[in-house]
């Protein structure tokens, strides 16, 4: 069961901070992060990859993107 983090409407650094806060609680994940701007998509993905997570992205129907983050 992945933890969902809704960052829609927020801009950096908050989406990355919310993801990193979740990692502190659950170091293994998985996590689903909802973002609605490309800068947040890139920043959260980069932060996850730098911490050894695998990242996949899926477009949502409302124009947002879901970033699925799990240990590879």
């Amino acid at each position: 069961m992945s933890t969902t983090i809704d960052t829609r409407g927020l801009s950096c650094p908050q989406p990355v901070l919310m993801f990193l806060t979740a990692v502190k609680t659950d170091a293994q994940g998985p996590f689903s992060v909802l973002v609605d701007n490309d800068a947040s998509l890139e920043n959260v993905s980069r932060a996850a990859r730098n911490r050894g997570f695998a990242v996949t992205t899926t477009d949502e129907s409302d124009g947002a993107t879901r970033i699925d983050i799990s240990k590879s």
Partner: protein
Amino acid sequence: MKPGFNVFSTTTGIIATGLVFGVLAVLLQQTGNPGNMGICVVCFNRDIAGALGLHRAAIVQYLRPEIMGMVLGAFGAALAFGEFKPRGGSAPITRFLLGGIAGIGALVFLGCPWRVILRLAGGDAFALFGLAGLVCGVGIGTVFFRMGFSLGRSQVQSKISGLVLPGIMLSFVALYLLNPQVAGQPQNGVLFYSVKGPGAQHAPFILSIGVGLIVGFLAQRSRFCTMGALRDVLLFKQWHLALGFMAMLCAALLLNLYLGAFKPGFENQPIAQPDNLWNFLGMVTAGLAFALAGGCPGRQLFMAGEGDNDAAVFAVGLIVGTALAHNFGLASSPAGVGPHGMAATLAGLGVCICVGFFNCKRGA
């Protein structure tokens, strides 16, 4: 959203962007812009305020095409890559206030973070105190972020709202072309021009707007941000944006060395003021304002080009703040800090700390 590959947001991309910015900034300095001021977002917005008559400091009046280019370049990139997404409604009046305070603090130091880089690259030792202040201001901002600081979520806005600032910038281009500078004249039509001082020093229009467009395009794609560069290192040890910051510094420094324009020390530095305590504190205030607003003044212009209403409000606040800085004697000059610059710096810092504290989950 198209989660496709964006080469500009890679490590190579952000470094290349920084290198290009450093070269272009020195190019503008070599072709007419003031010393160590190839690109200064705050100074140039201050000059725009002067050109429009919002302040009447005669030496800093020029409708800087770089700013128009930066917004329009980012707007074009956002349109081309499907990233033009009008949004807003995240504490707009607070962002206006932060923009004004940032402009005032930066004019006590005499430069935004972009000019900190260019002053360091020119050998200006006063800029070391500005850099230290910037790091401290952004550092205070990261404390608030750790405490849960947020100005709230933005919402999707109408397409037309995202066109407002790019539209204003396009109208500035038209104003410039309809009211061109007449040699030796302080005014043509509705625009004011400096006949001496920094406002009279500028690269040719085509070069200025061309560089602005390139900078806007590249910065929108790469997310280049001089405040974010420091914030991300302090907040989560992420060096990505810092590489762009350092690349810009390296490129400008090496080019200045090659051109013989690197003059290290405190003596005869162009458009610098000698009081280092207030060089430091001015940038503490500005740095905190940039951090709380989520981007350096350049990044605010680029986000406004993407349709971000809140960033546009910050940019307008910045223009108003720079006008007030000259109307009320807050801005520094090479002679020193303005008569009310110290009070404004401390008051601005106090307001920023209140904004930070009362927008924290653990605040209020």
